């Protein structure tokens, strides 16, 4: 227990100090932390899922507050919560089915569930189906009563278990935890391989002799372009350097090393060059539920220029970047101001930046935001590891990964 707490605290401090760079690294670390947290968490005998959810929520809230701008943390916490709910649900349905069959098995793939004359009838069946089936219009329609019933079934499921044999109880305890950890492992796996899945789609989007523009650097974009190159497509890439971090330089170097014709341009030349560009491919920091993108600074400008010249603006984003929240004033509220030292030499301008002198407020302010918000109407396409999507489809895609109960991660007890 203290072990986990120290881990959590360490991670919190890292988040607060902004030591972790990149949403992917953050997502992965968060998932790993939650995994170890869950594995060490002792659960009560009754209502395990509820307890686990509460515990994860408590940690998640802390994590999110440590760096509210890093949306990936919240995303992963919500994903884990969703996993717990799902696992619990599937266990419950299995248990219910098992009970009715005199504990035949705890098998998860209860495909034949519908055949049995289940006790709790429609609600359980629907719940089971929703966890196993891909979303479709039919499930949407059938889910109508179910969505209200889910929390209830989960708790009642726990209660019913409590009444059953104690041996079974223990089994169930371990089973839930085990399943959850398994699923979290899968999630971690997904996160670390997402760019491969995205890169696989590259050939479908890049044709011969294409001219592609990107800004800054993103692992996903690098992989994407290289994947297309490996498939014998030859095309040219313009890389805008992406002030103030100039990661474009590194990207350009890597692309050139991999044999792509690469041209580095300054950020200011984006508008000049975009008229000769066929497609803009960029990475994102986070994708909001409305299809808007929180992206490295400068991309709003690029997106506007692309729109002006009717150049497709394609955003590559792993699923862990999908955030189920709707942005409000994201330029300010979901942004972060970095150190002025990236822009100005303190040695040269220190006298102007002095708050102590004169009227108390210095004449010179330096603004160095980290992110830009690209509104959904400027985005042509999202490419995630599940395929290409329209910005307007994002809200729907999210429901596969997040449970509506978790949108606000806050402990019930505190509220």
């Amino acid at each position: 227990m203290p072990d986990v707490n120290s881990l959590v605290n360490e991670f919190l401090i890292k988040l607060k100090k902004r030591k972790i760079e990149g949403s992917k690294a953050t997502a992965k670390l968060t998932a790993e932390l939650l995994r170890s947290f869950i594995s060490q968490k002792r659960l009560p005998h009754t209502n395990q899922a509820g307890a686990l959810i509460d515990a994860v929520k408590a940690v998640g809230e802390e994590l999110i507050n440590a760096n509210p701008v890093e949306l990936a943390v919240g995303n992963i916490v919500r994903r884990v919560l969703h996993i717990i709910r799902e696992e619990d649900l599937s266990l419950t349905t299995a248990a219910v089915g098992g009970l009715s069959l005199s504990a035949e098995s705890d098998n998860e793939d209860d495909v034949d569930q519908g055949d049995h004359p289940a006790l709790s009838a429609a609600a359980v069946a629907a719940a089971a189906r929703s966890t196993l089936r891909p979303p479709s219009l039919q499930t949407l329609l059938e889910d109508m009563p179910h969505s209200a019933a889910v929390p209830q079934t989960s708790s009642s499921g726990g209660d019913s278990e409590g009444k059953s044999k104690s041996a079974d109880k223990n089994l169930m305890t371990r089973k839930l935890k085990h399943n959850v950890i398994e699923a979290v492992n899968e999630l971690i796996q997904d996160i670390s391989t997402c760019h491969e899945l995205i890169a696989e789609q590259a050939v479908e989007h890049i044709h011969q002799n294409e001219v592609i523009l990107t800004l800054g650097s993103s692992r996903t974009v690098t992989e994407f372009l290289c994947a297309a190159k490996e498939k014998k497509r030859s095309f040219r890439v313009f890389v805008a350097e992406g002030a103030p971090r100039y990661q474009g330089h590194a990207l350009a170097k890597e692309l050139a090393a991999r044999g792509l014709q690469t041209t580095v341009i300054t950020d200011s030349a984006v508008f000049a060059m975009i008229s000769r560009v066929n497609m803009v491919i960029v990475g994102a920091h986070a994708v909001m539920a409305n299809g808007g993108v929180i992206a490295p600074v400068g991309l709003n400008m690029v997106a506007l220029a692309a729109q002006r010249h009717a150049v497709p603006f394609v955003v590559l984003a792993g699923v862990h970047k999908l955030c189920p929240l709707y942005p409000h004033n994201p330029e300010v509220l979901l942004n972060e101001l970095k150190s002025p030292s990236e822009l100005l030499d303190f040695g040269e301008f220190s006298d102007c930046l002095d708050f102590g002198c004169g009227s108390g407020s210095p004449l010179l302010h330096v603004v160095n935001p980290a992110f830009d918000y690209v509104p959904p109407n400027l985005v042509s396409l999202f490419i995630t590891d599940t395929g290409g999507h329209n910005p307007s489809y994002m809200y729907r895609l999210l429901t596969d990964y997040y449970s509506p109960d978790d949108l606000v991660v806050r402990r019930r007890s505190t509220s």
Partner: protein
Amino acid sequence: MDPRRVPRTVSDPKVRQVGFFAPPDRTQSGPPAPTSSSPPVSEISPSGNSLSPVMIPPPRNLSSDISRHFPPAPISPLRGGRGAADSSIPVGSYNPSEFISPTATADFSEDAVSPGWSRKGNSAKFASSLPTGGIGMAAVKQNNVPASGLATVSTVRMPKAVTEKGGATGEVQMEQQPGDSKISKEKTTKAERRALQEAQRAAKAAAKSGGSKTQAAASGVNSINANTGKVPKVTPSKKDSSSVAASEKRGGDRQPDKDRKKDVPHPRMQFDDENRVEKAKRRSVVKQTEARSRVELFRHLPQYEHGTRLPDLESRFFQLDPIHPAVYKVGVRYLAGDISGGNARCIAMLQAFQESIRDYSTPPEKSLIRDLTTKINSYVSFLIECRPLSISMGNAIRFLKTRINKLALNLSESEAKASILLDIDRFINEKIILADKVIVKHAVTKIRDGDVLLTYGSSSAVEMILLHAHELGKQFRVVIVDSRPKLEGQMLLRRLVGQGISCTYTHLNAVSYVMHEVTRVLLGASSVLSNGTVYSRVGTASVAMVAHQFRVPVLICCEAYKFHERVQLDSICSNELGDPDAIARVSGRTEINYLEGWTNSENLQLLNLIYDATPSDYVSMIITDYGMIPPTSVPVIVREYQREHLWI
């Protein structure tokens, strides 16, 4: 001679055709402009013009450019109603302002025309009746030249009698009167002679062109000179002028065609044309090694190794015989990047030319005009090798050459030199320094307390505006947006903060973040092209685009001498490429060194664009020395300005 030729001077078809108005308007006595009652003389008070949010209305100098854009319909009724009553203020009429405008800045210049006018025929009456007025005007101008709209002054002061009687012509004379009074004797004689020559030539041309008399003046834009002799004969009759207007219209249709062919800017050097590049190389003074990794898209632009050129040029100082040291010095400084900014470069170049002209002596058996022109040409090609000319410099050179070509043949060498030196001085003073002052006056009216002004890079005009507004005690904040590789904004930031202006500094990528709080965007320009495209420091287009998206007005500050009749749609067809190594290094950030040794990778190119083209729809208004105009009016100014150019 031919009476019909005269009115052309009065309202040259070339000028007239710009607007929407119908010929009859022109010929009648001017309708009083609604704004003509505004501050009588030179005091520029743009704040007083509440007519339109974007344009400054007529009382400004060169009001015509703007007024031309107003359709005539609304004005003509006015004329009927209160024409007589208001005639005391003749300014607003289309006619006078029309051709006053081109001469506006030429007022003090030797006006070849005026002497002839004042002496001959009926017009003598006006001339003699006016001398005091004319001198007065000249005086006024001299006094507050920097601030005042040059043309307005004279027109507003025009005595009633003249305008009513003489109609348009009278006003023209008025216009030129001041110049006349100022001009030295020697010039008047010269001018006269030239006028005569021109007239003869014109007559010949007319005869050739199948006897259509109206064509007589076809000898070109400077035909004004040709007409000078005859003007007075026709001037006074109003009816006549109206009838002439029609014939003139016919002529006008053809003449511009002819001129237009001449006006089309000849194509630039395309550096993917190997033959020409070879030729150019053989001629070149500066050794130019082609860059090893050239950007495919920009093969038509010169891409040379930058590192070696400067030391090479420096080492060859003594071999460069034909280049005057002053020019050489400027060239080296261009190459080294010591002088940047359109105005600074242009002034440096002109001053170097002055220097070289001062030291110039005509070789025996050669004519000054020809020899000096070739001399200047060689200087110019040297400067081009150091750094491609900016459009403003091209205009200045064009001006200089015109002046040289128009020198009277009988002038002594020293006189000719003096006249050219004077011309260059005048160009620098009027077109650049005064123009900036006028721009500042205009632009300051657009700055209000509490404004947040965004500027990009470092524009001298914008800086002057900001400093002046600050001097006036306006409370505003400045957002300086900067971008690599030059980071010129830091210099501007230094100077503004030093003056106590509150500044926010950021980089170009963050422009959409700061644009929320911005109320105006002030940008400089390297040039404004006649389709309204603003050709400026690379990145300007992005700033203007984001401002447009956020519905923030974009004001471009640009002296009119930087306007050019060329058109351009993108930033690729013509541009300038800077040193690519400047991109590889990030100043003050040694940890960013990924691109070291980039030339070794054949797949990697670095592109350092210098300019970009901002589409005109992102521009709310262009502030020039002629007033505040919408980008659509640029071709009008260009047209006016070219004429004026030749007239100076």
